């Protein structure tokens, strides 16, 4: 048996081996299974998957590329973090060689675009969306339903609080301020709408715009419904409140789906898009590109690597990805048996770019740097939303250039 098992991969090695690097150490097994499917259909290509922990990945990749010892296919960070690799000439543009990228939604492909020439340099694999996770059992217990307006949401919070349940768990202490930035991303589109991102990019609006200030204000207004000691709670502690069934809601991203389920398989939860002032059958949510897979310029097996990348740009791969990893893929047209994932996929269809990440995580100081640090002072009343908005604007104004339309 063992000998037979060892023979098969060797036979595959006789074919051309394409080396692929990824930082998704958590998805090692899931990814191997996905690429086994590819190899079955393409026996002449073997994909050698190599994983490096996220924290070391970027350094390892750029060092290897500089020394000409990189992989054939590399997982790439999105937006601003992609640019240094493109500018150094380590990657090949994929517009002509992988036509599938252009058929993906812009919220996915936008993360793989180079600022310098506007071309695609990677095949995106996931569009995470930001939404409200809620505990269906606690909602039933308090006799409430998914809210369709902000007023209903606040009403729900009051009922939960009266029932002795923590309405919303969130927290950004001890350097996890990104969770609070994310919370603003969850509720943001319900306040500033779907077109705000484009206006910001064109320079027609700034962070000091009343709409963005109103979004910050809304985050602050919900303070009575966050857990007691919210200011001192970090991201992990906040997730624990939700996972353990103590809190009814959590402001998060689609990537929590798998980990919430893994931490408490008995937790009954679902998701909804943060509601606005008026009921909206198609509420808008924040979405972004998590990263992509790109072709390394110094690769000696570009033809084979492109075959792999074209497959990764296909709807087949997207379906496989969602089924095995539990994240929404880069294509909203796929279907899922997981009801939570299905709802997230439906939300992808009405998404706007996650403003602070997609628009302003390009150069330091990023909007994220400022909001993550200062938002705690705004929430605890040491700073007004107007001041926080002005600080973000002043910081990004040192480098941000609006698109010339």
């Amino acid at each position, binding site marked *: 048996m063992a000998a037979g098992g060892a023979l098969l991969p060797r036979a595959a090695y006789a074919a051309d081996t394409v080396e692929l690097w990824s930082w998704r150490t958590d998805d090692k097994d899931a990814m191997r299974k996905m690429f086994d499917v590819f190899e079955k259909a393409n026996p002449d290509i073997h994909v050698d998957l190599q994983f490096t922990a996220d924290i070391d990945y970027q350094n390892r990749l750029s060092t290897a590329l500089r020394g000409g010892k990189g992989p054939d296919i590399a997982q790439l960070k999105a937006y601003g973090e992609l640019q*240094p690799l493109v500018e150094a000439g380590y990657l090949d543009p994929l517009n002509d060689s992988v036509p599938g990228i252009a058929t993906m939604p812009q919220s996915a492909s936008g993360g793989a675009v180079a600022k310098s020439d506007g071309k695609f340099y990677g095949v995106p694999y996931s569009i995470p969306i930001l939404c409200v996770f809620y505990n269906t059992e606690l909602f039933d217990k308090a006799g409430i339903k998914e809210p369709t307006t902000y007023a209903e949401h606040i009403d729900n919070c009051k009922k939960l609080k009266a029932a002795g349940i923590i309405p919303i768990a969130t927290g950004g202490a001890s350097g996890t301020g990104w969770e609070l930035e994310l919370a603003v991303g969850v509720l943001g589109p319900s306040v500033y709408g779907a077109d705000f991102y484009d206006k910001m990019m064109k320079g027609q609006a700034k962070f000091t715009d009343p709409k963005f200030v109103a979004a910050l204000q809304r985050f602050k207004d919900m303070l009575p419904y966050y857990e007691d000691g919210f200011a*001192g709670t970090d991201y992990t502690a906040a997730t624990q409140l939700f996972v353990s069934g103590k809190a009814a809601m959590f402001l998060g991203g689609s990537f929590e789906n798998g980990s919430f389920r893994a931490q408490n398989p008995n937790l009954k939860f679902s998701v909804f898009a943060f509601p606005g002032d008026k009921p909206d059958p198609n509420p808008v949510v924040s979405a972004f590109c998590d990263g992509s897979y790109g072709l390394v310029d110094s690769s000696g097996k570009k033809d084979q690597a492109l075959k792999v990348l074209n497959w990764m740009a296909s709807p087949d791969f997207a379906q496989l990805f969602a089924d095995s990893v539990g994240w929404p893929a880069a294509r909203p047209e796929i279907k899922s048996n997981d009801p939570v994932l299905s709802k997230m996929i439906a939300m992808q269809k009405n998404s706007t770019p996650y403003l602070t990440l997609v628009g302003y995580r390009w150069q330091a100081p990023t909007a*994220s740097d400022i909001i993550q640090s200062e938002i705690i002072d705004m929430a605890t009343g040491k700073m007004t939303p107007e001041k926080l908005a002005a600080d973000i604007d002043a910081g990004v104004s040192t480098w941000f250039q609006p698109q010339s339309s």
Partner: protein
Amino acid sequence: MDKRTRLHLAAIGFILPALVIYALFVLYPLVISLWGSFFQWRGVRTTGFIGLGNFARLFVFPNWPRFSGAFWHNVAWFVGIMIFQNAVGLIFAYLLFRRRRFGLFLQSVFFFPAVLSPVIVGALWKLLLAPNGLAEWLLNSAGLHSGRLTVLSDGGWALWVLTAIDAWNWMGLPVLIFAAGLRQIPAEIFEAARIDGAGAARILGSVALPLLVPAISAVTTLTFINSLNQFDIVYVMEGVAGAPNFATDTLVTYFYRLAFGSVGSTGITDTGLALALGTILFLIVTLGTIFLLRMFDRATVRP
């Protein structure tokens, strides 16, 4: 070759292995990073010589508020440690010195936290000071506080709490050094002071303190260097951005963000600015240390 030259050559031969290692792993990187601070960087590549351009950028928005803020936090840290750790440590050492019974045992007790890594100390205190943590329960039970304890997220408190934890961590060191210093002072000096009618406080102030200047010099200089290079406790307890709202940001956490990025800007680094900051920090620490050593040298008295 005369005997003197041969002796010198032999001496150089003996230190050569250590010197080579020192030069390779300390001097070379130091010089390279000083040199690098004069260049413009894109990621990990230099793109051109810009003289003092990086240094100039440190002194304008948006870098100046971070740089000056971090600097004053380091200074506050130094002052805090001088009071919480060294002044209190001196009093403890003096009390231990006067009351010999259990002295050595208590000294070991004071020293115990120093064997723990600051990373462990930080993680431990983070748990103790968290909402629903032990510190909150104790304070609330004693009626000194009510509700949830969030001092680590309160800009008015966070820096002082961290400094106090650092002082707790290293309290044993000044106690150890001061106690050893006190034991080295000839007993007859204390005897004479007592016969002249001096009380305990007077003996500490007028006799022990002046004779302890070498020990105070060592402790102060070490404190200065450690305070200016403070990183680990902040990193563990407040993250790399010195939460809340940069209230606990230090020069080294700022350096770390510039050189390696942070959550809100992973991979978006500013190596040139980081190296300029590193150079300035190196200058501050070196010049400050020289100044402190000279000042204490002048203040040293001999019995």
